[in-house]
């Protein structure tokens, strides 16, 4: 049984506190799934048309990959395309990433500083993925403490991609699917 205790907005996302009355192994499964198996969007493929900035292409791509992107993936092959075109002198922020079907979670993340005459022209594709593959797809961090026998209090810190409750809901769904597939496999062995 889940009881929501507190929910507050922070500068980098949301803090969510709830208690869960269930066996500890179940609570730990939920925690692990929330961290590493709930799918989110993150930039994976970066196409660099021009980069005369002082930052290398690979470093720039890595910085772009770590920008949280809003939204819950519905399909496995969904793609959000962003374009970035800027000429110095200026600082390029995450708000300069333009897209028709997506949005960055925070608009004030600095990407690179451009000097006079320096220019970048980039196209990037954000795809769904899970935190187990790369931390850029991790939607939150979750910890818990035991408050009674078979009851724990969770503290979830999200990174802006999704609402904390949505992550929890998704994690429960994933755990249910895993349990069902495990049951199916057991039945197959028995037959």
């Amino acid at each position, binding site marked *: 049984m889940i009881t929501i205790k507190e929910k507050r907005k922070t500068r980098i996302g949301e803090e969510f506190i709830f208690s869960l009355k269930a066996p500890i192994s179940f609570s730990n499964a939920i925690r692990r799934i929330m961290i590493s198996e709930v799918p989110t969007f993150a*930039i994976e*493929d970066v*196409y*660099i048309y*021009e980069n*005369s900035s002082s930052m290398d292409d690979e470093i720039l*791509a*890595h910085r772009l*990959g770590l920008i949280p992107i809003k939204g819950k993936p519905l399909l496995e092959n969904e793609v959000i395309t962003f374009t970035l075109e800027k000429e110095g002198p200026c600082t390029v922020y995450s708000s300069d990433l333009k897209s028709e079907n997506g949005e960055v979670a925070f608009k004030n993340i600095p990407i690179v500083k451009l000097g006079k005459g320096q220019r970048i022209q980039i196209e990037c594709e954000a795809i769904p993925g899970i935190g187990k593959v*790369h931390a850029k797809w991790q939607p939150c961090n979750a910890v818990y403490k035991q408050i009674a026998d078979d009851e724990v209090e969770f503290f979830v810190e999200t990174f802006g991609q999704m609402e904390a409750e949505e992550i929890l809901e998704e994690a429960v769904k994933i755990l249910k699917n895993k349990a069902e597939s495990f049951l199916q496999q057991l039945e197959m062995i028995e037959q």
Partner: protein
Amino acid sequence: MVEYKCLNCKKIIKLEELGKRARCPHCSYKILVKLRPKVVKHVKAR
């Protein structure tokens, strides 16, 4: 197509123009900077 830029006269020089000598054909300056090739570079964001 590989291109270089002379740091003295700022002219763009193609590899064919350069031949075997690493000198600017216009001003004989020895410092040449290789320019970024005009291709789209694909990088994985990891």
